[in-house]
């Protein structure tokens, strides 16, 4: 595969042609915060945390959906980008009811740890406190919309990897919500295969194993790369 060279944070790095800026960064251990991106799923560009500055572009670009190109000059961190990332996290926290202290994913949550990492220590905007429910109709799993970020990893993993497309989104704007089938209780879903991939890839406590209490829910999304490599490259690892 042809190799290209680009500059990231004043350093020349090489990348495979067709790779995204984010993939190039991760290959060179350059840290970029992400929430909606997950290795193995299609990139979406929705959480806006991986925005980077690309010389010549009037706008900040999401590293996950922007292809790395020859001679590109990329800056992943500066005062403005870091501030914007914190503000975006503030908005994310303000949107739903993320009460870390009583969440099943406390201490194992990507949102929680990103906030700490990026120094987002308080939210200046009004908490919207939406009225949202908890669906525990499924035999093994539950969905708590209070903790959902609308990253749509569940929707994508269900469609792209499991092939069931049980999940999708209803409504729009701040009223958007993930749904199963025709917005029926998850437990009634005919398309759901109960595989649990959605639960494992969910970055917060929105999807969880039933029975887990505060701080008990631990997730492992690396299975995705393993099974995808196994499937695509026929490299099953045992």
């Amino acid at each position, binding site marked *: 595969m042809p190799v290209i060279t680009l500059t990231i944070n004043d350093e020349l790095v090489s990348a495979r042609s067709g790779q995204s800026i984010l993939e190039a960064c991760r290959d060179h251990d350059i840290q970029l915060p992400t929430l909606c991106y997950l290795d193995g799923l299609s990139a*979406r*560009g*929705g*959480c*806006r945390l991986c*925005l980077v500055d690309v010389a010549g572009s009037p*706008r*900040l*670009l*999401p590293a996950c*959906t*922007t*292809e790395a190109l020859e001679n590109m000059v990329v800056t992943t961190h500066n005062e403005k980008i870091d501030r*914007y990332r914190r*503000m*975006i996290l503030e*908005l*994310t926290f*303000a*949107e739903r009811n993320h009460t870390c202290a009583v969440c099943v994913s406390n201490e194992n949550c990507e949102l929680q740890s990103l906030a700490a990492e990026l120094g987002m220590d308080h939210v*200046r*905007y*009004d908490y*919207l406190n939406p009225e949202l429910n908890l669906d525990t109709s499924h035999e093994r799993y539950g969905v708590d919309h209070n903790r959902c970020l*609308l990253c749509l990893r569940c929707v994508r993993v269900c469609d792209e990897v499991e092939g069931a497309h049980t999940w999708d*989104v209803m*409504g*729009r*704007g*701040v*009223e*958007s919500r993930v749904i199963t089938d025709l917005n029926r209780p998850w437990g009634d879903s005919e398309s759901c295969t109960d595989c649990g991939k959605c639960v494992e890839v969910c970055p917060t406590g929105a999807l969880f194993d039933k029975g887990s209490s505060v701080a008990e829910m631990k997730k492992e999304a690396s299975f995705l790369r393993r099974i995808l490599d196994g499937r695509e490259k026929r490299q099953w690892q045992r």
Partner: protein
Amino acid sequence: MNPTSLAEQAAQELQRQEQLKLRLFLCYSTPCVAAGAEPVKTALEELLAKQDLAADLEIVATGCMGPCSRGPLLRIKNADGEEQTFEKVTPEQAKEILLHSIANQPVETTALPADLPFFVRQTRIVLSNSGEIDPEKIEHGIARGSYSALAHVLHEMSAEEVCAEIKQSGLRGRGGGGYPTGLKWNLVRKSPAERKYVVANGDEGDPGAYMDRTIMESDPHRVLEGMAIAGYAVGAEQGYIYVRGEYPLAAARLVKAIKAAERRGLLGSRVLGSNFNFRIDLRIGAGAFVCGEETALMTSIMGRRGQPVPRPPYPAQSGLWGYPTLINNVESYANIAPIMQQGADWFAGFGTEKSKGTKVFALCGEVVNSGLIEVPMGISLRDIVFEIGGGLPDGGKFKAAQTGGPSGGCIPAEHLDTPVDYESLKELGSIMGSGGLIVMNESSCMPDVAKFFMGFCMEESCGKCVPCRVGTVEMYELLTRITDGSAMLNDLETLEQLCRLVQETSLCGLGMTAPNPVLNTLHYYRDEYLAHIQENNCPAGVCQLDQIPLLKLPEHAAELAVFKEEH
């Protein structure tokens, strides 16, 4: 049909029209119909039938004539080509006008003066057929040159030449962005692909804008012809025209127009006897402002949730179903045929150095003559509002002209002499937008207007990216506080910072431009914001300001809605 038979049909139809003693043009576009054009038409038809005059006379139900606030409009044209236009016509007046005109007697009803600035200050290129033809009769259009540009292009020009001509004309996107149309066409033309698409964006969503609707309703063939020329120029055989769901009449007329054109070989296979095939399908929107954004519009054409996708890749590289797609606004396409007919240099003779041609505006709000106008680029706002528009009614004082809808801003009185072109409006913190121009008087409160637009963006946000989905709600909350009296001074700072964030980090144009009305009004009318916050005073007298800032609550503890004895 081939170019020769097209010209023949045009000549035939013209001849027929010339033989008529009298032609009555009745504006039959949505505003005039709402104002009562239908009974006028019935009355005229009955009279015609009774007097057995159908052979010598013709009633033409036309598209928009312009001054919508004066509807129903009736124009009468005799065999000598003399014309008179009547406003606010009732069925009785219409009959009287008809009878007297037949008898060659002076009409009692006063006609609009022929030199009305509303008419004479306009330059009609896009709207040249609007109000002159029955949009449902293709012959009317053909008689006025419809499809002759297409015939010329198909038989005399190469695709490259067409793109070059458009580039030379200086035409820029009329949907608001102002991207040079010729450049876009060339990009798509050069994109190698087995299949390409042409899309017309008729999802005119800006509140207070109805230019595209009028174009589609009044002269649908103009749009179809422009799309076909584009298809030829970029190498596409399939076009889609995406019409806003709120415009059923435009959709119905386009369906009829497409069928009529296909029947005559003006669209479909081997167009006008050439080797070029071009089909156009209609897609009807279902009510989502974000679908005006090009990538969202394309996902909607594909039957999905109309959410935008990050650019790059641009539609010119990867659009509908991953193929290169040319997407232009309806008004942009409506400019194509005249450019090809009369040449790029002729077109470039209108307008300013960087903004060529004309622009159609929907002039409305607090203005005497509201309606649809087409003016050369570079005309001053003052001329539009006070000459064409006739100023404000009831002695109202001009406060602002809003352009660009929820992505634009308010231009204050001190900038009335600014020429209307892409760059000048941008410098003022507004945008050309698709062409809504709303005049406001002193009774409009600017923070309230900003809140109105933010509410719009909040409800229309698709929800894909965080800054727009949540940021618009938070900005709306802050503006609500300012307009209900509970804001504190630091809220203004929070609001401004949030505006910058949403502008710079949103995924698509909706979010990126959503803060514009706030930033723009904060720039020109900051005093008004401060009056709300510091003096608890709404200068325009719009806002209630009956809420209490948080920190002052302890002083009002007694009035707070606490659960007391009433239970």
